[in-house]
């Protein structure tokens, strides 16, 4: 894997080395594709950015995503923040601890300054492996700081969202309010005339989708990503209707006019680079 961290980052919130094997990702030599069932040689799959021949996009950890997105040595992460437990919610500290051990992250977002093909930006990546990539106070605060820094330095922002649960239930009303806080951070950045590209990866639902992730100037999605407000099971139970095929997939969102384009993983970095290039301030020659 490429080392995308700057050689001497001020703060180190994420391990430099390969993340520990994750459940949904290969923990041995061979990996079975969830979609086509084929066994694939893990090393080979990694070279193909965890996209199966059948087109299935495996879920990536934030560190893996960073390594295929940012320029080598360009990433400088923000000061780490840690979740408090404002409601004394039973089991939450243990859940946080388990998530930290499983992902090597402090909370569900990896965020910092980075560059893509030499163009500077603020890059945020939500990791599904950390309590479903849910947004609590830490994620809300870090994203907000990201947009604020971007306003200060006049930088574009790219956020990869992938949070199954949306808001983090264990932080109750505080997590709900992060929807407002992040939406407002986007709003200020937008009103400063700056670019926000929101990339929706599998799955982007609930409070994450119903706040900052929906507010990109340009919204991209990976093929097959689940995108929506209410979870499909809730929709099925409430309406007692059979869900149409492909309901709430990226393709469904594109067809209904909710996103700008679907970008396959191998083309994502180049696509982001083009979008950043279109929005660069004109430099006098």
């Amino acid at each position: 894997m490429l080392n995308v961290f700057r050689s001497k980052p001020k703060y180190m919130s994420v391990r430099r080395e390969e993340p520990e094997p994750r459940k949904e990702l290969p923990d041995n030599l061979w990996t079975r594709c969830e979609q086509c069932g084929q066994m694939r040689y893990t090393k080979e799959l990694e070279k193909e950015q965890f996209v199966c021949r059948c087109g299935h996009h495996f879920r990536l950890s934030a560190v893996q995503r960073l390594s295929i997105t940012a320029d080598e040595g360009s990433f400088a992460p923000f000061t780490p923040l840690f979740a408090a437990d404002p409601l004394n919610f039973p089991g939450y500290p243990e859940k946080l601890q388990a998530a930290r051990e499983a992902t090597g992250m402090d909370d569900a977002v990896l965020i910092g300054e980075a560059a893509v093909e030499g163009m500077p930006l603020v890059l945020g990546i939500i990791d599904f492996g950390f309590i479903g990539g849910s947004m609590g106070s830490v994620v809300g605060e870090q994203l907000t700081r990201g947009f604020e820094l971007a306003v200060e330095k006049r930088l574009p922002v790219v956020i990869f969202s992938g949070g199954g649960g949306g808001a983090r239930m264990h932080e109750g009303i505080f997590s709900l309010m992060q929807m407002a806080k992040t939406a407002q951070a986007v709003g200020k950045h937008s009103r400063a005339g700056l670019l926000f590209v929101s990339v929706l990866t599998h799955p982007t639902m609930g409070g994450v989708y119903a706040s900052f992730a929906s507010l990109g100037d340009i919204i991209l999605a990976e093929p097959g990503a689940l995108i929506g407000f209410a979870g499909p099971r809730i929709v099925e139970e409430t309406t007692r209707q059979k869900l149409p095929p492909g309901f709430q997939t990226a393709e469904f969102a594109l067809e209904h006019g909710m996103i700008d384009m679907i970008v396959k993983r191998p083309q994502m970095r180049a696509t982001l680079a083009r979008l950043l290039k279109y929005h660069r301030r004109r430099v006098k020659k």
Partner: protein
Amino acid sequence: MMPVFEWERPLVELEARIADLRRFVSTHGIDCAKEIAELERRAEALRKEIYENLTPFQRVMMARHPKRPTTLDYIRMLLDEFDELHGDREFRDDGAMVGGVGLFEGTPVTVIGPQKGRDTKENLARNFGLPHPEGYRKALRLMKQAEKFRRPIITFIDVVGAYPGIEAEERGQGMAIAQCIEEMSFLRTPILCIITGEGGSGGALAIGVGDRILMLEHAWYSVISPEMCATILWRDSSRAAEAAELLRLTPADLLKFGIIDDVITEPIGGAHRDHAAVGQQMRAFIRRYLAEISKVPVDELVERRLARFRAIGKFTTERMPSNA
């Protein structure tokens, strides 16, 4: 007949006995003043005991009482004149979200809120008060109209959540909510939000970004409904009462957390027992808070609104020892 909760049954039975005794007195001319006074005293004590010790889930049930005043009830009680304005100008008119313009004590205001039905027929027409994206787009349209004419906005919030339906998803429920939240945050006009019943997650927050946020005594506001929370935690929605305790969704909790600014007391036994009384109480609060936010210069108002939400969140810069 007014639906009765299990926990208030002893009180309701006692009240019925008092009423019976009074009837008996008036038809037979027998003096039972002493007995009545004694029963009244017991009823008063019971009332206090029951309603001052409600569990969080009992409050949730109060907030859902079918006779609780709805948005249109508050509009009827509080505005001198009102015209409902319909439609999102894009798709259709969503009956689950109402809004319009009227006069509050002579001042033009825009009022918006989800609307539950009184009976099955009305509930079907209003989709049980669960708005579709076009409901939120209507709300946003009316809010922007208010901004244009520099009218204060009052939102009455009573919604268990945005509707989780196929068409709602097709038309961008998440996006409609996000846009409401974002645009409301920057509106250059005073906004007063009042959670009157259920404050269910993003569907409530979508019309809940204001300069003052008030809450009725028996309302709740949470990231998730107690039932859904119980389903996630224990795969058992019948444990909603336990979940309600965990979520800290009562006005007292939210006041302590600094999420809301004030609590509007309800008549003893809940708003459904005396609409006029709660209306009167609410009028006083609206008068006071509307005056307060209306005199703030609009630039400062928006700045303060943004700063308020910017400050919300609980985290540390050091890993807590208990979490280490």
